[in-house]
């Protein structure tokens, strides 16, 4: 199995990096091929909202930087892991910048109804499974609920199955490790 890890941590001290370390260790021990991108180390410009990836160079972003390579990396993977601090019940701006850049090239501009709601049609046969792990300072039910729903909505929009879980900064290392393993098990990573 191939996995792509998008690390949306804000700095080197972030608990998101601890989650990433446990996740990558586990995946490598299980002989999975893992590619990790620490987004704050990459030059990725924000999406311009120009629809160039639909209308000028379909399936490819018109901006030439590390962000335009993300759709290729995603399509080469069976699983995409989104690791992020949960800010106001959503992803960090760092991670969202990457998501904004890769989502549209994976989709077609045309509308399609899914469960009565309108979404964009998928460009390729399928997209990899999505697994998001968010980090919160402490228990915050409202932020947690919004984050989990947001991830599941992303799954619908990207025509894939999505899984999410929350880790708290106050969690002990063993607890974080256990949460990572249980998320992988929930997502069907063997």
């Amino acid at each position: 199995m191939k996995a792509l890890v998008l690390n949306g941590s804000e700095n080197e001290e972030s608990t998101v990096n601890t989650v990433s370390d446990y996740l990558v260790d586990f995946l490598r021990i299980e002989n999975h091929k893992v590619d990790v991108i620490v987004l704050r180390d990459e030059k990725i410009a924000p999406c311009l909202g120009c629809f160039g990836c639909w209308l000028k160079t379909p399936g490819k972003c018109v901006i030439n930087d590390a962000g335009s390579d993300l759709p290729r990396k995603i399509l080469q993977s069976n699983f995409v892991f989104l690791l992020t601090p949960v800010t106001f019940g959503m992803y960090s701006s760092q991670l969202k910048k990457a998501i904004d850049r890769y989502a549209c090239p994976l989709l077609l501009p045309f509308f399609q109804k899914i469960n009565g709601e309108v979404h964009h049609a998928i460009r390729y046969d399928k997209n990899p499974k999505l697994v998001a792990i968010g980090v919160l300072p402490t228990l915050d039910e409202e932020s947690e609920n919004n984050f989990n729903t947001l991830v599941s909505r992303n799954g619908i929009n990207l025509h894939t199955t999505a899984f999410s879980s929350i880790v708290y900064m106050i969690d002990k290392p063993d607890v974080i490790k256990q949460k990572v393993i249980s998320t992988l098990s929930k997502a069907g990573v063997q």
Partner: protein
Amino acid sequence: MMQKPTSAALLVGSPKGPNSTSNSLGTFVLDKLHEKGIATEKAYLCQNLSSEEKKASLLRLVDQSDLIILAFPLYVDCLHSQAIETLELIAEHEKGKCQKSKKSFAAIANSGFPEAIHNSKALEVCRLFAKQVGFDWAGGLAMGGGGMISGQPLAEMGGQVRNQTKALGIAAEALANGEPIPDSAVVSMSKLGFPRWMYLWMGNRGWKQQAKKSISVKELYNQPCKEIHL
């Protein structure tokens, strides 16, 4: 309890800046507030995050305003990364303050899908932001079918945006009086001005027509990563 504002700032959270639906919607409200004697100012987030100087100027605008309105388009079920970066920036700035002034925060979301419900998670993000930084949450409006506006002034669009102009008018009235956006505005804002099937038909046809300017319709379905796709 919200306060009657004397100054209001519109933050346009679309990467398209002045040519965006967010600008059209937010400006409509801002103009109404201005008519009521409230000092108004506008900032395009896509132009205000590129340097420390510009970020400082954006934060000054927030500091000087009693009411902050964020107008934004939906990007992958949420706010665009630049709008999120702005909220992170404001939150960090507010955290460092010893004495906080009373401020209200409202949001106007639009999505290219016809259903307004797609915006609900993004509006919840705005509410959580306000709660976390200590601003009074003045409420949020959401509309689907945002693609039909694309930067046009609402006043020039006539009947197709009648529900939205009504909603934004009600919202502006309430915000000017220091009250939260009423439910009647939320309901009106969410209503498409024409049948959903027509929006879908026009949208799908529109993509093909736009594509024809530079490529063929067949090319819209290109799969540049097909060879490596698992």
